[in-house]
């Protein structure tokens, strides 16, 4: 009897693993297909029954990547994402601290007003933001690219939630020692909030890296394009050269995949923090 039960449990466990493996394969198939195609010849991809390269054609990579200034695209994306991360971390930690730890009239109303903006589709503010940036003459510049993205209400929410979980006694101790608000924030609250800051920075970085529509609108020249816009442009230029396009896809996906591989923990925490209140 116990044997039968163990066998049944083992069978369900096996079925479970098998199902999961199939799911993972289906989910990963496009990426595998992308990697495979990126190493094939331009005509080889059209051959019947050929799913994998006969011999990997590594020269696709240098050729495709020099066809357009991808180095510049990456640099732009990196600058864009870094500045956005710095800005969002600064605004979210300060505002989150105010909402979590300061008492002032109208605090909860103001917080609700902030949160309400998360309901608004981004496309509404896109047109006026574009006109504003255009009016300032910031089209096709880093200023125009970055300035609208420096604050994230989601980040403020995240930091507020986190600051609220910190024990108040620590701050009270600092206050007794004569520390002011800013001092407490800098030396007590912020160091304790490092995990939340890491999560916020990660998400801000990925969101900035993935941001397509805004850079598409505010950049004109090739020198100002970010990776996403660059790949879209590359795609329309090399419409039928699939290996080259897959090279671009691999190169765009790889940094994010690596980042995710090493920072899974923070990702999962970030998602779980927003899912449960």
């Amino acid at each position: 009897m116990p044997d039968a039960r163990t066998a049944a449990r083992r069978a369900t466990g096996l079925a479970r693993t098998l199902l999961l493996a199939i799911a993972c394969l289906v989910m990963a198939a496009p990426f595998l297909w992308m990697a495979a195609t990126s190493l094939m010849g331009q005509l080889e991809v059209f051959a019947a029954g050929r799913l994998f390269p006969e011999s990997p054609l590594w020269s696709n990579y240098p050729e495709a990547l020099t066809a357009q200034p991808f180095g510049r695209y990456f640099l732009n994306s990196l600058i864009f994402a870094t500045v956005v991360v710095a800005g969002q971390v600064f605004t979210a930690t300060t505002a989150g601290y105010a909402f979590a730890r300061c008492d002032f009239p109208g605090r909860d109303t103001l917080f609700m007003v902030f949160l309400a903006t998360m309901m608004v589709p981004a496309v509404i503010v896109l047109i006026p933001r574009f006109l504003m940036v255009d009016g300032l003459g910031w089209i096709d510049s880093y200023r125009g690219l970055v300035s609208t993205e420096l604050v994230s209400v989601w980040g403020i929410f995240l930091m507020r939630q986190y600051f609220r979980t910190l024990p108040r006694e620590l701050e009270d101790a600092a206050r007794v020692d004569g520390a002011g608000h800013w001092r407490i924030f800098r030396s007590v609250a912020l160091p304790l909030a490092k995990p939340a800051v890491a999560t916020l920075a990660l998400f801000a970085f990925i969101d900035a890296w993935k941001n397509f529509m805004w850079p598409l609108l505010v950049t004109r020249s090739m020198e100002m394009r970010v990776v996403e816009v660059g790949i879209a442009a590359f795609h329309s230029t090399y419409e039928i050269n699939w290996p080259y396009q897959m090279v671009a896809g691999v190169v765009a996906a790889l940094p994010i995949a690596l980042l995710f591989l090493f920072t899974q923990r923070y990702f999962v925490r970030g998602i779980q923090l927003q899912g449960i209140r």
Partner: protein
Amino acid sequence: MRGEGAARVIPLVAAGAAAAAGVVILAVAADAPSRARERATRAEARAAASLYELPGVAEADVLSLLDGRARIVAPEAGGSGPGAHAYRAGALEPAAWIAVEPRDEGGRWPWAASVLALFGALCMAAWAAGRRRSPPPPRFPAAPAFLCAATFALVAVAAQQWAHGELGAMSSSRLAGALRAAEAAGAAGADFETAARAAGLPWASSAALGEPDRIWTMPREVGEAIAADPRLRSAARYTVAAGGATYHGGAVALRRGPGARAETPDDTLHLVFLGYEETASPTVALTAAALGSALVVSLVLFLLPLAARPRALSGTLAAWGFLTPAAALLLLFTFGPLLFSLWISLHDWRLVDPAHPFAGLANYRALLSDGAWWSAVRNTGVFTLHVPLAMAVALSLALLTRESRRAVRWARLALFLPSITSVVAIAVVWKWLLNDGYGLANRALGAIGLGPVAWLSSPDAALVSLMVIGVWMVVGYQMVVFQAGLAAIPRVWYDAARVDGAGPWQRFRHITLPGLRHTLFFVLVTSVIGSFQVFGLVYVMTEGGPLGATDVAVYHIYREAWEFLRFGNAAAMSWILFGVVFAATWLHFRLLERRGAHA
């Protein structure tokens, strides 16, 4: 004590400010048409006088130009009655004075705005009366402040619309007058320059005009006037700087028939008429100032009691110090643009055209019957149906990985990668994967003997293909959220249910699902909001095609704004989209609440 006194003063000050602001807004709005009317009258008198000077023009022509509002005063009589504009002309007679009475048309007081202003003031007064009996407010009186703001905004819009209507009517009557003048002058044998001068438009020389810009559009009223007049064949719009002001006028080519007496170099005569003066709208600036000052005053009065408690005051100041960076950026790049977007949506706003004539709700009204837009909305709705599907898959995956932590860790990368990778790269890969002849999908189908499917090139399949990609993209993210939700359900419940003899389905139905209620709601709302904003996939993969089958709302808005440069329309569309999203979310909320109450 000081605080209480201040609290009592606030409502009175606010009500007074509301009433005063309403009155000032109305006065400014009414002033614009009356000044324009004055200008038009003067221009007409001048036109009549110069027409009168032309040889060959009969007195009847002059009188018909002015619709009987002109008097030809006795020679050398000088001046004329109060408010009349008189000009001296002397071709037929030694010197005649053309006197034109100021127009008495239009000039209805903006009654809608008045009613609104009155209503606002009444609301504030009622609130003030009610306030007196209750204790001082513990929080900033947000509801009255917003009511006040909304009333101001409505008053301003109503007043603006009224003033715009007045100016528009004036423009079309001015067009008619100028046409009559030029016709009369032309009939008398005058050349182009003279005819233009006679029409009261001294700057309308052909050299000054250059090439008209065909993209520009006429103000609505003028366009209608031109459409109604068979003599006018084509129209273009000019911006003319004269006398220190910028005028936006329309030019129409007046075709001269074969029976016409005079011969001009070409057989068309360009007429420029004065549209209306485009200046910064004072109503708007005023409303903004009134709103801002009302808010600041009420805030100061509200914070005044705090001054009595230094500790609280310093806390508040510190909090605002912390909030300033985020609040300033949000104000500048989110709240400001929200209002700006609403403002744009009420105007005929085109990128290439410096004039943005007020259009009221015309953009919205036009959208109601715009089939392409509603088909885009419908496509977005259909696309959003992938969300429940994805949630079902994600929930099963979350349940599947619930037991073993090891499986989770290695599966996560494969499952999660699609939701964080670059959307453009994903779109390119899928475009290749769904390629008609050589894509992986059709090769796999071919291997099991099924015919190729035109995934992206047939209107029936394209949207479904996008939905499949949509599922693929969000499943991993949703799974992680569900895993967190599942982990929060106490194990004891399951054990208790098992003791009671509940099967797996019953445990799922009565413990897992209710336990995940909030998580499900969260995932549903965020995914629906996200899927309403799908753009990159469509932009790269289908460009809205084939035959508009995948034209989703955001892509439609993008094209309207950045391809056709119709920002006013696009802004109106984005507000409609917001309305749809908001309604959907609200509905979910209500449903959830009701179910929660019953459970």
